[in-house]
């Protein structure tokens, strides 16, 4: 393979690197060019998206290190789109100091996610995990004046690096048993042997790293602090793009490489394997996330715990397995990411005007910004899973696939837990809406800013959420076509 061919296959990644360097240089030369750097980053992301579209339909280089397939391209596009909105949010939320550096790191994180999505080889996946992870730690602690932000960044870093160590150890065990780091090679090696304890430990440890990435309980402890104290755009990015990419690659590892060692979590048909582990993670996440969210009075912290619960719902699709299960997971995580970006956009708006994001700061938002309040209804009710919003369709898809997959309705217990979780979640989402529509602003009169740029961003996100809910076919079809 010539370098030119390689460059062609890695064009999206290359575009992102160049853009990141350009933005960084721009920051060094010209301090005040906030708009210019945002525009450059946004254009770079769009160009990378364009480059994804020009990729060949299928190709596999270096034993799975750089795989082009319809699925990978689709989710590279999704990650880039989410990163694009991340830049838009950053443009309206971040202070001007060191702004280009922030954008450059955001672009590098996106590069990590692209690597993660486009590789089907353990080492490359680990590099992607680390590149995105390290960038995200910095993004979390970026506002260095904010002590809580730095604390959150440090927590995120400590938890993250420990989880990475586990994952790396797990990967080494798997490599030791299978003699290959490519997912396809592992799959064929695993299919031929029984499951020794040490290999099981390897699978378990690998899962730890991903459970950390998607904030599944009990590996979610970094999430509340990060969501609450990181800059709004960083939190939104971590909760959306990073999560989508992690679910894509987790699904590929489990369903491609470990397919033969799935096992079963059915009520009377328990079989050892990774499915019971994922089912346990899902049930714990749903219960812990929803119950703890009940006690929160800070909207961002609440969204963090609810994100844990949503991570649990999303895992159901992997428990169900197969093409239908994976596509349900992918649909849910994508629509969730878009919805959460919207919710964070509203949080950012409130924070900028009122200087906080407790319930009290949201009180009376309806009177100040009826449009933002209306959008928040769409986002929160979608998270709660009410039709005709994508959260509802996603849950219908996930739960029906899960119930279908267990023979003789064996996974009914998991579906029941998930439904109970939904019931609990509606209560706390309504509490936020109650504050927005019914609460009396107790704080001193906040200043309302002109909001054209923000309103346009919000309108686009709300329209996207409504569209995904009313016309889910588009995304479902493209995911199903991309899955072999």
């Amino acid at each position, binding site marked *: 393979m010539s370098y030119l061919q390689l460059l062609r296959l890695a064009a999206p990644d290359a575009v992102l690197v160049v853009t990141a360097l350009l933005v960084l240089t721009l920051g060094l030369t010209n301090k005040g060019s906030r708009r210019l750097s945002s525009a450059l980053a946004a254009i770079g992301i769009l160009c990378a998206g364009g480059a994804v579209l020009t990729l060949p339909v299928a190709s596999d280089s270096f034993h799975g290190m750089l795989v082009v397939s319809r699925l990978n391209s689709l989710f590279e596009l999704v990650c880039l789109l989410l990163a694009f909105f991340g830049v838009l949010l950053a443009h309206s939320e971040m202070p001007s100091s060191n702004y280009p550096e922030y954008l450059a790191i955001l672009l590098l994180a996106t590069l990590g996610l692209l690597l993660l999505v486009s590789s089907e080889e353990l080492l490359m996946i680990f590099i992607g995990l680390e590149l995105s992870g390290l960038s995200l730690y910095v993004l979390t602690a970026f506002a260095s004046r904010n002590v809580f932000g730095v604390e959150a960044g440090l927590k995120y870093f400590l938890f993250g690096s420990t989880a990475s160590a586990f994952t790396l150890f797990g990967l080494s065990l798997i490599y030791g048993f299978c003699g290959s780091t490519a997912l396809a090679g592992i799959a064929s090696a695993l299919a031929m042997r029984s499951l020794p304890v040490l290999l099981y430990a390897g699978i378990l440890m690998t899962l730890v790293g991903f459970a950390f990435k998607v904030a599944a309980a009990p590996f979610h402890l970094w999430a509340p602090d990060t969501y609450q104290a990181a800059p709004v755009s960083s939190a939104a990015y971590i909760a959306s793009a990073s999560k989508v990419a992690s679910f894509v690659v987790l699904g590929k590892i489990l369903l491609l490489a470990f397919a033969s060692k799935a096992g079963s979590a059915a009520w009377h048909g328990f079989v050892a394997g990774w499915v019971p582990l994922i089912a346990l993670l899902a049930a714990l996440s749903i219960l812990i996330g929803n119950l703890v969210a009940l006690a929160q009075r800070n909207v961002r912290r609440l969204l963090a715990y609810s994100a844990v619960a949503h991570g649990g719902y999303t895992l159901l699709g992997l428990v169900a397995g197969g093409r239908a299960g994976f596509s349900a997971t992918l649909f849910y995580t994508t629509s969730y990411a878009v919805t959460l970006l919207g919710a964070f956009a509203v949080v950012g708006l409130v924070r900028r005007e009122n200087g906080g994001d407790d319930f009290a700061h949201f009180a009376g938002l309806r009177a100040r910004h009826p449009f933002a309040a209306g959008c928040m*209804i769409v986002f929160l*009710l979608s998270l709660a899973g*009410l*039709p*005709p919003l994508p959260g*509802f*369709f996603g849950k*219908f*898809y996930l*739960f*029906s696939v899960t*119930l*279908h997959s267990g023979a003789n*309705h064996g996974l009914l217990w998991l*579906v*029941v837990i998930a*439904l*109970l979780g*939904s*019931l609990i979640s*509606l*209560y706390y989402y*309504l509490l936020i*809406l*109650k504050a927005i*529509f*019914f609460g009396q602003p107790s704080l001193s009169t906040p200043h309302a800013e002109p909001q054209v740029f923000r309103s346009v961003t919000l309108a686009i996100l709300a329209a996207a959420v409504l569209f995904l809910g009313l016309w*889910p*076919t588009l995304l*479902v*079809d493209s995911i*199903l076509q991309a899955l072999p």
Partner: protein
Amino acid sequence: MIAWTIYLSLIAALLVLLAPAKSARWVALLATAAGFVIALVAFCAPPSDFARMTTIINLPWVAPLGISYHLATDGLSLTMAVVTGLTACCAVLFSWQLKERPSEFFFWLLLVVAGSYGVFLSADLFLFFVFYEFVIFPKYFLILLWGSTNKEYGAMKLTLYSFLGGILVFLGIIAAYTSAGTLDLQKLSHYSFTSSLQIWAFPVLFLGFAILAGIWPLHTWAPTGHVAAPTAGSMLLAGIVMKLGAYGALRVAMNLFPLGFHFWSKWITLLAVIGIVYAAAAALRQSDLKFVIGYSSVSHMGFVLLGLAAANTLGVSGAVLQMFSHGIIGALLFALAGVIYLRTHTRNLDDLSRLGLSRTMPFLTVMFVLASAASLGIPGFSGFAAEIIILIGTWHSYPVAVWITGIGMVLVAAFTLRALRMSFFSDASLASHEFAPVTQHDPMTLPERLGSILLVLATAAVGLYPQFLLDRIMPAIETMRFLKL
């Protein structure tokens, strides 16, 4: 054409947000009146078309999952569409004087109406459930923002109970979907589910629906929610929303899982009978006029469940007739209670008994007497026709239940007359009239008079000639397979 009831309500909901606040009520009135007329015209077609579901529109929606946008009608759904139109129209008339944020109010109100039409017309289980859940959150805002007594609590309780019902229904629906592999209601109603599935899925599905229909002991959201809601909100709740539950129980739960239904029907009868008697007894002890009406709603909806559980054509048709009848009577009673509250700023029966309303507001008094007569089942009104048919139907299946229900009916008469006497004809007010100066209240406005006359005429018309409805309801019921077991 009938599908336009949904679209018109949705379009009007968007219009009221964009139009100036003053014209919001006209937009709402036009949309709901048009919906009523469309439903009525469709309903007046010759009854021979009503036995089977007639497809109106069927488009693929999410093809990979077999979800389609499928609307269809039969006698059952059209009956419910008519009562939806009538109640919605009158709810707008009784909100004519609303001052506070009318655009938003009518927006949420029209969403409830659109969702309800959608539930009654859908022939795809997914679509059905989308509309069914779609009705939940507008109610929350209606009560929270325009409600009265204890509204935060009432709104939250009502929403969570509805959603609890919703997730039970959801579970039942995906169980049916994953077993049969289709969401088309007609295909599902011919699919033979295994009996073990029916025995666990039927109670889940039925209970989910019955929560919204106010089944004892999960009825407590209804009185609290009714009292907290604004007048139009209570009218929609009593007139339409509780019917959604009963309709779903019949159309989905009983129609899909006939074996499960026969297995559980005696328990449903038991709960229904307890509900009738308990709610009537509870209504007897209330001091708030709206609580009396709220409990009476639960009691009357108990008759619907009783009729359904009878599992014969007569009982089930009576239940549908009762859904129609209570939709009108319940809405009328809540509307009149709202009229009183708007004038006197109290709903406490003791306070009302000192006001002598029968002298100051004669028109209101006449209307309230008629509504009470309809509610306690005087022949000539729809309530009598429906309840007698239900009892005859139940007599064939569970004679004992009829005896106990008799006690309930006495209690219904007792609390209705008590509320009527205390709020309009109390001795205190009549005696003191000679001495004490009488507070003058504004007379009922034209829209209020119009709305109450419409509702009274409807209940009288159905009471005098129930055959017109039964001709259309019975053929649709007779095709359902749980009757044939």
